[in-house]
């Protein structure tokens, strides 16, 4: 089996064997981990400088 075919077959098997609840939990954890491991300027939950529109507000 060619390497690309083997990889595709391996991924298919894993997806079929994965416990759905555990897979969902792992995906959620990955998103959290990825967020924490991004450079600060790319994080979604970062403090932002107020823009000109906001600064005009009293």
């Amino acid at each position, binding site marked *: 089996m060619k390497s690309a075919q083997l990889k595709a077959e391996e991924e298919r098997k894993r997806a079929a*064997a994965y416990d759905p609840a555990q897979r969902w939990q792992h*995906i959620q954890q990955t998103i959290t981990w990825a967020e924490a*491991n991004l450079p600060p300027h790319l994080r979604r939950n970062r403090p932002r400088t107020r823009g000109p529109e906001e600064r005009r507000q009293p």
Partner: protein
Amino acid sequence: MNVDAMLRVLNEEQVDYLLIGGMNFLIRHLPELTFDVDIWARDEEENLRRLNRALRRLGAQWGRTEAEWLPVPEDPRWLEWQSVFCLTTDHGALDIFRGVRGLEGQFADCKARSVRAETAAGVACPSLSDRDMLACQEALPPNEQKTRRMEVLREAIRRSETQ
């Protein structure tokens, strides 16, 4: 997925490996949609033995078919059956490569060129260099290449050369 736990166990078992793939790109450059950890393990008997110990600690499971999905065996020789394995672990999905397309037979050179990356939790790991990540992409058929990743890598290489 607890990436830190996976890397920590690989480090503790002294597995000779390189972090590759999307997670490596994410740690070093930009977010990319990826839900597994890819590692390239040095393809040598003692290293595969250490890798198998780490996999068993991580609760890794694999099977020749999905119906035979079981904890990985104690005898590490199963790792010689194929060049790539996609596993489940207690901490998330883990892909093991014994060889990498575009970098065949070059583990030692790639390890020498690797970069020490560190996760936000402070777990260190050997990370495939930008130049070698690019070589992997260039070895793929054009329709499988990740063009955004290649652009970012080319730019990072260009920047490092001008510094």
